[in-house]
Every structure is written in C-alpha cells, then in structure tokens.
C-alpha cells in the first residue's frame, strides 16, 4: 500500500481521534522509572524509546488471570457447576510503539494457539502500530532468530520515525481502519529516500543468520545430551523472570477458584522453571532436577518448536538476557547448540 506521512505535531491528534473507538496502549514511563505498557491518557504523544519496553505484549493476547469460564458454586442452585463462557466484549485496543520483535512474537504464538478461541478473539480485537528499529541494543539478536530490526510481520501499521515526521505504511485491513486522512499526507521524495536509507542502514547492522534451519538439522538427542547444560544451568535460581518477560513463552496453568458462591476457571502464566511444573499428583517429578528444567526450556524454544513448526520460539528481544538475575544468556546457549 502507498505510504503516508504524519507530522509529529499532528500525530497526537490522530491518536486522540482513535481514542473514541479504541483503548490505546503505549510504552510510557512507569512510576518505577522504566518504560512499560500503559493505557495512554490522551495527553502527550508517547515517545517510543530505543529498544523494547520492560514487558512484552503477550499480556494483551493472553492476560493473566484470564477467565475461561464462570460458574455458580452453590450446590443448591439448579444451575450450579455449569461452566459458562464469559460474555463481556472489551473495547478494541491499539498497541502503539511495538517493536518488530514483539510484533513477530504474536505470529509465533498464534501457531500453537491456533485452536484457542480466547487468544484468537483477542488477536482480532487488537491492532498493532509498530515502530521499526533504527538501531538495536547490544542485547538484541533478532536476526539470529529469523526476525529483522525492520521486519513488519504482525504489524497492522509500520512506522519509521524520521525525526519530524512519522513515515507510515499500512499493512492490513485493520491498519486501513486506523487511517485518518485529515492528519495524513503524501510523503515527499526526500522523506521516502530517508526512510529507505534508514531501513538499509538498520538491516546492515548485523550479519547474523537465522539459526532455525541449522538447529533443525541437528540431531535432537545429541543436543539433549550435550555436556554444557550443567555449566549453563548451575547459577539458575529457577524463578520465572525469563519465562514471564519472554514474548514467546506461552505455557499456562488452569485453576478453579471459588469465593462466596461464585466460581471461575482461570488460566494464568506458568513457568517451566518452577519445580512444580511437571510434578505428578503421586509426587513423581520427571523434571525435578534444575538442569533438566533449564535444558528443557532452551530445547523447547530452540529445537522442539522449530522441529514442529519451523521458526525458533524466540524473537531475539533480549529481555531475558537483560533481566536474568544470574545472567544466563540465551545467546551463549545458541552458540553452544550451534557448535554441537
């Protein structure tokens, strides 16, 4: 589709106009200081900082807790214990300022969640205005995972920040519905070439290759039995930081909660790093060992998932690298696996 341009001075108006139909979320300064996803209050145009915000956008696609069903929990009630789907339909959302890695994570997560109506419903209701990356952080490695700093997968509108203006490319019907011609104009030739230059420069920053095909071709048990897992897993404290901040970790647990006659079946994020993740009711725990858990997480993301579906279950956003309290680095694991 033809690109547009929005003057930054007008962009705030554009977003305000969209506020009637959509709840807009952007990476905004939190009270703790870092930028994180928050509802935009309609005031100043959000400033999209270099790199990714603290959390990924997966909380919009599968929030926690997510109510799967509700039911009446009073035994005397004739309708008791019948599970009913929740019926509320929240306002559709716009996520403004999503980086290519986070946008791509939605595509990756859709694969295992193909038949999950809750995820698919949310996906229908969310439009993504993505911002291409001019420059990556030292912890970014999107190209290694098959992504790109200027990738547009998963975005409905792709924005390139040219300083005074936003260069806008509409990529889907949902994106089309966000266009407001009164704020948009045709790009000048100089702006078109500036955008092209930016893309070329960003693409040329790193020479890394997509590791997926290389990992797919390796023998599974050889990677599983590799000698470096002990060294990698030793400092791990088995918290859920990596799994909960990761855009492509999608495991969950389902529980029933009842309170004063009302019940609900909810799902919430679970982490394969927790020892209880695989514990049977009998007490037997197939992955009771820390090494087994750490190995399983990396094998799933870098071997089992690509074997089954093609791409790595990782977008190279670098959150786990920055936030792991003991600095377990997935890039090191990738290097070790590729060298096996």
């Amino acid at each position, binding site marked *: 589709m033809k690109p547009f341009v929005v003057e930054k001075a007008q962009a705030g108006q554009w977003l305000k106009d969209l506020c009637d139909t959509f709840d807009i979320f952007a990476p905004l300064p939190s009270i703790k200081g870092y930028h994180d996803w928050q509802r935009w209050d309609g005031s100043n145009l959000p400033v999209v900082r270099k790199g990714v915000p603290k959390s990924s956008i997966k909380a919009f696609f599968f929030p926690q807790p997510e109510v799967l069903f509700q039911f009446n929990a009073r035994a005397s009630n004739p309708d008791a214990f019948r599970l009913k789907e929740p019926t509320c339909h929240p306002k559709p959302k716009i996520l403004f300022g999503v980086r290519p890695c986070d946008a791509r994570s939605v595509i990756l997560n859709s694969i295992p969640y193909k*038949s999950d109506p809750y995820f698919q419903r949310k996906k229908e209701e969310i439009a993504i205005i993505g911002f291409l990356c001019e420059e990556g952080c030292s912890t970014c490695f999107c190209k290694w995972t098959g992504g790109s700093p200027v990738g547009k997968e998963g975005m409905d509108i792709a924005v390139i920040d040219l300083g005074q203006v936003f260069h806008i490319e509409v990529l889907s019907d949902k994106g089309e519905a966000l266009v407001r011609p009164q704020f948009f104009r045709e790009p000048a030739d100089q702006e078109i070439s500036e955008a092209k230059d930016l893309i070329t420069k960003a693409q040329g920053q790193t020479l890394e290759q997509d590791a997926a095909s290389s990992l797919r071709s390796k023998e599974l048990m050889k990677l599983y039995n590799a000698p470096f897992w002990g060294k990698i897993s030793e400092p791990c404290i088995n918290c859920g930081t990596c799994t909960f901040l990761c855009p492509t970790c999608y495991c969950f647990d389902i529980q*029933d909660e009842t309170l004063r006659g009302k019940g609900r079946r909810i799902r919430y994020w679970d982490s394969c790093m927790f020892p209880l993740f695989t514990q049977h009711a*009998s007490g037997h725990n197939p992955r009771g060992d820390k090494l087994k858990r750490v190995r399983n997480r990396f094998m799933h993301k870098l071997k089992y998932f690509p074997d089954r579906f093609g791409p790595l279950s990782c977008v190279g956003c670098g959150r786990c690298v920055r936030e792991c309290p003991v600095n377990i680095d997935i890039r090191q694991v990738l290097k070790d696996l590729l060298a096996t």
Partner: protein
Amino acid sequence: MLLDVLEEVMMNPYLPYPAVIDDIVVETEDGNLKTFRIVLENKTDRDKWNHTPGQFAMLSVAGKGEIPIGIASSPTEKGHLLFTVNRAGVVTTALHKMDIGDPIGVRGPLGNGFPVKSDLKGKNIVIIAGGFAFTTLRATLIYMLEHRNDYGNITVIYGARTPGMLLYKEELKQWEARDDLDVYITVDREAPGWDGLVGFVPTIAGQVKPSPENGAALICGPPIMIKFTMPPLEEVGWKDNQVYLSLENRMKCGIGICGHCNVGPVYVCKDGPVFTRQEVQKLPVEF
C-alpha cells in the same frame, strides 16, 4: 460482525460437555479406586462422541479442577462412559466424595489411542498390564472382543499387588471363561483365598513367552513394570516397533498448548499417550 462469525466457527476446546454421574463402583479393597459411569447430558453430545480405545478425557469438577483419566469403556459400549479413577490429589479426592446424580464435566476424547483400526488389525495381540493401569486396556480388549475376527490370538497378562487390588473382577472371571482368548491373572504374593497365578507381571510374561510372530504388545503400567517386562519379551524376539506403551504426565489443557506434559519434542496429551517403544527410545526420559 467478524467477531460473531468467529465465535460461531471456533468451538471452545476448553469447554467440557455437561454430564452426570450415573453409577459408582468401588473397585479395590482399599477404596482408592472407583469406577464412575458417566452419562453426557445432551443427546447431541452423546451422538457426537466417538472415541478410540486408549484415548483419555478430562474430567472436570467445577470448583476443583480437571484431571486426565483414561477412558475405560470401549466405544462399543454405547450411551455411557466409564472412568476408573485413583484417589491421589485435590480433584480426585473431590471426585471420590461425589454421589450418583452429581454433575460433572467431560472434555474429550483426547489423545491418539491405540491403532485398533489400522496397525493392530490382523495381529496377535498381547495385553500386559499392572495395577490400575489396566483401564484403557479394558476398553481396548472389549473393543477387540466385539470385533473378534479382526484380530488374531489375544493374550491378556494382568497383575496387581493383591487379589483385592485387581480391577473389574467380575469381568476378569468372564474373560477367563471364554475360549477365544488366553487370560493370565496374577498377584504379587501368595494370598489367602487366591488359587490363581502368583508372581510379578514380568515374571508371568517370562513364563507365558508370548510369540512375537505377527504380534503387537500393548503394555500399560508403572515405568518400573515396563522396564522389567521388556527383557523377557525381548528374549523371545519382540522388537521395539511391535510394543505399544501408554505414557503418563502432568496435564492441564489436554490439547498440546499449555506445555506441561511435554516429553522432549512430543506432547503426551496430543501426540500420545500411546507411543511405540521404538518412538519412546528416541525420547528423553522425562515422564
């Protein structure tokens, strides 16, 4: 508008069929195993239901949770479903406290089941089970007896710790009386009033020496039983691709998404629970 169409088209795989408990039978002397006969409430659900022996279903106790239980009834037993449940945790304890007439949810059928309509047809079947792992094999056996001509010889080797821990005691007697299958029931140790075989299941398997010729062995039991049953079978020539195992693991969604039940690259709930031993040998031991 798009949303409405989407809701119509996509069914919710997390929603159980409403059902009711029709009958409860206490199977074992310690009371820890009960067989629940469950009837789906809606006729459309009953008509739609079609399972393969070896598949399982999620039993949903609203307010407590869900548990994956092998379907103990054969698809030829129409109108109801049987589940034999061992009391182990929160949900199974709640289930054991329930009465006939109580509401329950059933989600399924899930998993892959034994290939009774394909690979197992025409073969000589050897069913080996220990303890309360016999449930899905009951479904399989009844299915095969209903389609007796589709299969060759059928041998059943089933053992429990004590006579009181055997499941389906009445049906075992009926099967022993039949002449179109060989049934060997054993208990681990001598017991008063028991005049049948005595010995661990692997020992009996070693004595029976079932022939691997055109054979398929369906083995269900605790991992240690499977481990010790394989040597006597291998000794008489059984190959790994002739042996079918049913794996167990912690499950939540039952449809291969939540990530709990994975054994290496496979999901026990979706790619299993039935695997050939050849497939299992290629997997990490994470079950």
